């Protein structure tokens, strides 16, 4: 190994790395790290540790944290190391600090000073290191401490410094845009820096700035276009080439920026057409990087003002992506298609079979991307197919994050495009059944409202049909063993409201079902509350209709249980139910009118219905009511004395919860202070006032009518869950709900999963292509007949291509590897000559041109000597490196096998073979690898069989 990679570390370090490298399980690794922590704790604080040794300790600390253990005991030593004079040691210190500390850590304040000092250093490498640290460690508050120096460094003679200074400003902009708002012009200035590296870096902050405020940067369109043109024409130094593409990463960034600037702006877009078209033509679609640029071009074209020619090129590129065997390209193709169909929806049609292939691909990533595409192209004609597919997929996955997302998409599409009420309800049922605990509660409220209101038309028969079908489907679904809480709430509410409405089901049948629900989900109080209220409604409707109410025995026992429930909400509902049942038909009808859930309830805020009662009381000599605002001054001791009396008289009328928190805190403090110093007075007079206020307010409404009103309100509030009256239990039982739901979800998805798989399989076995054709027709075929016809036209040609594809997967891997490996080598051979090319002046000319264009006064600094230091590359090694033949797959396999073998005997054998493998694969660079091995052996680290992969060339 050459000068760069010499193993100058200590044996201890090598041993540590070796043992970590050979650890065969997480537990073993943890043991190693824990003992390392003990060693480091002992050693790191020893006085007079040589700095090389200290640097090694710090790297060992980095290992400790990287492997998931706390190394905070050593942070301070990393901070201290940033003070060191040796650059390598200093930089390692900074690196460790950026890895260990977040910007708000207490120790940061100790570093700001060092950073300030280093920013002033004469050695530009020290400045660069400090600027790296600035990007990671400076928070909003410390920005002003370094900002002036950073601004100064923007004009530093070294391009590396200018580049990093720009990025530091970029960081400040990300942290706190206002802190650098006056410096934004610097970004524009640096865009025409002599050095392409600085220009490239400046694109990062400009991209962010333009994202936030497009209109202020429209003037730069010409400049960006001209830069992009020059980059594409290979006028940048060769060093920026990657696999024969000129500065691809800069091209991509520029295309992203142009996409922003041209969005919805015809004039700006027109400036871009030529250059984007050129890039489309020039891009090599056989390399990954070429395709990356093509993809970015498509994104740009679909974002800017549409141009037919470019759209055509984009469509061509997309079809190449989709036809490729590489899953990566297919993925990009699907994504690109999703962007382009916004502008030209007809393009999706020609790729329908490719899309369906992707949809049915076993690769989850591809499948999801395709669902995203389908989501974008959903309309009323294909919503049923798409949502059904989505739901099937939703049922089959376990990833809750994605399940939630796809569930909300299903709901959104169903709400937007539902062809019929019935379908909507069925779809919602499926979503709730399988992802009920993941969807937003609002979705449930929406569903209830929809069932109550119908679809808005004044078609009463349709509405009642909707309700009947909902009731029927819910009664059926209740047969499932476990259902999510939210869904049960909807079911209970609908059964209560409409269960007996159409006369199909008897009250005793519905109430029986409701009792079953309440019993089966006995640890879910919200569901129980919904069930009780639903029972009350059913009974009320029965009484109002003049029928005899015959409470089921299980309902009786349920009520007895609830009457003694710990939940006040449940108790209250149970008592209300009892009260309602005892009333006559007329009273019940006015309390609980049937099908009145949509009617507005007028709340008499002035409580005018109490006037008579108040009048009576005042005549009897009662004090008139004084509003709270006027009352505050009159507070006196006598009121406090009366407090108990007040409380007793108004006990049953409290609406609010007792105000415990403040009082208990105050009550608790005095004893504690009393214990220490008995002389401290207890601040008593404060709290009676509070309790007084709470007791007086409710005392006004002590009429039977008010409880009735309350009763009604209660029910309504709960239905929609909008207001604060929503049952307080909902929060308290959320945890228990979750555990229940966890089980439901597993059960539900399992059964459903197997079900869908069955249907899937059987479908596939019969015949693949007709099925696909049907799917294609239903997905892509629009309402018009012509579209459908063209769909069938495609059918005849596509199946054959599909057949080919189905054989392809095996070879696709090889093709892919073939594709990449030959491509990656030649450019690097080219790269070999880069130092000389780079320092030639002509290549920089374009930027001088640009400067003139943008700002005539900018300095033309001598950028000739930049990166002259780079000439120290070890060229001979590179030659050797790339002539090397790639190690075959057989080697890999044997490595894996020997790596897995456990017994010491096989270890020995495996060891020798892998050594051979390592050497053969490194044959062209034999000298290097021999040196490496020799050095390692010298240090006592022998490449053993335990982890032969450690020695394997990554690019082999």
């Amino acid at each position, binding site marked *: 190994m050459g000068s760069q*990679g010499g193993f100058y570390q200590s044996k201890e370090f090598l041993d540590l790395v070796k043992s970590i490298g050979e650890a065969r399980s997480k537990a073993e690794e943890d043991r190693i790290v824990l003992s390392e922590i003990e060693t480091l704790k002992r050693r790191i604080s020893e006085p007079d540790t040589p700095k090389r040794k200290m640097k090694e300790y710090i790297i060992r600390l980095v290992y400790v944290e990287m492997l998931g253990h706390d190394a905070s005991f050593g942070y301070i030593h990393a901070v201290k190391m940033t003070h060191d004079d040796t650059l390598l040691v200093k930089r390692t210190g900074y690196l460790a600090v950026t*890895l260990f500390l977040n910007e708000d850590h207490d120790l940061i304040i100790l570093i700001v000073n060092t950073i300030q000092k280093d920013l002033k250093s004469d050695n530009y490498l020290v400045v660069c290191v400090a600027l790296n640290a600035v990007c990671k460690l400076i928070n909003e508050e410390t920005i002003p401490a370094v900002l002036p120096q950073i601004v100064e460094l923007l004009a530093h003679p070294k391009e*590396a410094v200018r580049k990093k200074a720009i990025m530091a400003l970029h960081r400040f902009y990300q942290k706190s845009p206002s802190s650098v708002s006056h410096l934004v012009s610097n970004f524009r200035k640096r865009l025409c820096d002599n050095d392409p590296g600085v220009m490239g870096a400046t694109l990062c902050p400009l991209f962010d700035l333009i994202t936030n405020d497009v209109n202020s940067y429209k003037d730069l369109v010409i400049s960006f276009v001209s830069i992009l043109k020059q980059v594409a024409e290979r006028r940048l130094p060769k060093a920026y080439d990657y696999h024969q593409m000129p500065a691809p990463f800069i091209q991509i960034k520029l295309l992203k920026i142009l996409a922003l600037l041209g969005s919805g702006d015809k004039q700006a877009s027109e400036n871009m057409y030529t250059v984007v078209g050129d890039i489309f033509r020039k891009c090599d679609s056989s390399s990954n990087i070429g395709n990356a640029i093509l993809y970015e071009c498509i994104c740009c074209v679909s974002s800017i003002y549409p141009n037919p020619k470019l759209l055509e090129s984009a469509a061509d590129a997309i079809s190449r992506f989709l036809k490729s065997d590489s899953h*990566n390209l297919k993925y990009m193709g699907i994504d690109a298609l999703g962007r382009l169909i916004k502008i030209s929806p007809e393009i999706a049609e020609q790729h329908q079979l490719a899309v369906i292939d992707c949809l049915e691909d076993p690769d989850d990533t591809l499948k999801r991307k395709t669902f995203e595409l389908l989501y974008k192209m959903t309309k009323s004609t294909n919503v049923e197919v798409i949502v059904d597919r989505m739901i099937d997929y939703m049922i089959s996955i376990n990833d809750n994050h994605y399940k939630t997302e796809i569930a909300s998409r299903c709901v959104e599409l169903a709400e937007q495009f539902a062809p019929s009420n019935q379908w909507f309800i069925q779809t919602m049922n499926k979503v709730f059944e399988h992802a009920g605990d993941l969807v937003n509660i609002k979705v449930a409220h929406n569903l209830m409202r929809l069932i109550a209101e119908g679809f808005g038309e004044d078609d009463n028969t349709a509405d009642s049909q909707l309700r009947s079908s909902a009731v029927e489907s819910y009664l059926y679904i209740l047969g499932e063993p476990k259902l999510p809480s939210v869904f049960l709430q909807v079911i209970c509410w609908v059964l209560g409201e409409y269960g007996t409405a159409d006369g199909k089901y008897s009250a005793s049948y519905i109430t029986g079902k409701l009792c079953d629900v309440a019993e089966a989900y006995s640890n879910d109080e919200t569901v129980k509350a919904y069930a009780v209220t639903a029972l009350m409604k059913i009974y009320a409707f029965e009484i109002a209709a003049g029928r005899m109410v015959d409470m089921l025995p299980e309902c009786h026992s349920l009520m007895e249980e609830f009457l003694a429930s710990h939940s006040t909400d449940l108790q209250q509902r149970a008592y209300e139910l009892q009260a309602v049942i005892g009333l006559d038909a007329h009273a019940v009808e006015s309390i609980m009118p049937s099908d009145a859930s949509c009617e507005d309830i007028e709340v008499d805020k002035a409580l005018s219905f109490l006037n008579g009662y108040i009048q009576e009381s005042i005549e009897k000599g009662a004090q008139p009511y004084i509003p709270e605002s006027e009352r505050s001054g009159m507070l006196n001791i006598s009121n406090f004395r009366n407090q108990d009396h007040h409380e007793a008289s108004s006990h049953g009328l409290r609406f609010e919860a007792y105000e415990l928190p403040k009082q208990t805190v105050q009550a608790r403090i005095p004893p504690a202070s009393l214990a220490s110093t008995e002389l401290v007075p207890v601040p008593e007079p404060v709290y009676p006032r509070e309790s007084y206020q709470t007791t007086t307010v409710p005392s006004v409404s002590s009429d039977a009518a008010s409880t009735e009103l309350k009763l009604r309100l209660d029910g309504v509030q709960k239905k929609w869950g909008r207001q604060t009256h929503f049952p307080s239990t909902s929060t308290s039982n959320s945890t228990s709900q979750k555990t229940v739901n966890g089980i439901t979800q597993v059960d539900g998805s399992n059964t459903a999963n197997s079900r869908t798989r069955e249907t899937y399989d059987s479908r596939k076995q019969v015949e693949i292509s007709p099925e696909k054709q049907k799917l294609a027709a239903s997905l892509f075929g629009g309402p018009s007949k012509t579209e459908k016809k063209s769909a069938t036209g495609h059918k005849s040609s596509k199946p054959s291509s599909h057949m080919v594809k189905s054989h392809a997967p095996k070879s696709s891997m090889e093709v892919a590897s073939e594709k990449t490996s030959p491509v990656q080598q030649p450019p690097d051979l080219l790269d070999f000559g880069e130092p000389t090319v780079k320092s030639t002046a002509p290549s920089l000319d374009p930027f001088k041109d640009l400067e003139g264009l943008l700002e005539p006064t900018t300095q033309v600094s001598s950028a000739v000597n930049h990166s002259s230091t780079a000439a120290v590359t070890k060229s001979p090694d590179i030659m050797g490196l790339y002539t090397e033949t790639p190690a075959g797959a057989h080697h890999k396999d044997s490595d894996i096998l020997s790596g897995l073998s456990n017994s010491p005997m096989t270890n020995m054998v495996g060891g020798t073979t892998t050594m051979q493998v390592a050497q053969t694969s490194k044959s062209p660079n034999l000298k290097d690898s021999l040196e490496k091995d020799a050095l390692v052996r010298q240090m006592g680290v022998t490449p053993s069989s335990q982890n032969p992969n450690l020695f394997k060339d990554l690019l082999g």
Partner: protein
Amino acid sequence: MGIRFILMVNKQGQTRLAQYYEWLTLEERRALEGEIVRKCLARNEQQCSFVEHRNYKIVYRRYASLFFLVGVDNDENELAILEFIHLLVETMDRHFGNVCELDIMFHLEKAHFMLEEMVMNGSIVETSKANILSPIQLMDKAS
């Protein structure tokens, strides 16, 4: 932001290098690494090199025994990130000569230094191998 983190993990799932561009606590890092490594290592070679995870994507590439995993925002160009990984490996290869897992382990700080040159604030800032390596070579010479 663009790039959220860069991880190197071997095929046993052991972390070999981790660089985050947004702050995560030790526990969060550990959980995230466990989760995504499990996800990516379970995939076969025909499948996409991209995996959606929570609200971002992971682009990964395997070299011998080592996986390179890059977490990126959803609007990032996946293919470009895939090639960025390759550029990183090529750069390391140029520096170490036949770079292998052990090189990265023995010179963890250098691997980090290269990343520091290539990525700042989660954006790719430098792609010229010469520019990336020159500060590191100068530092080697000086010490």
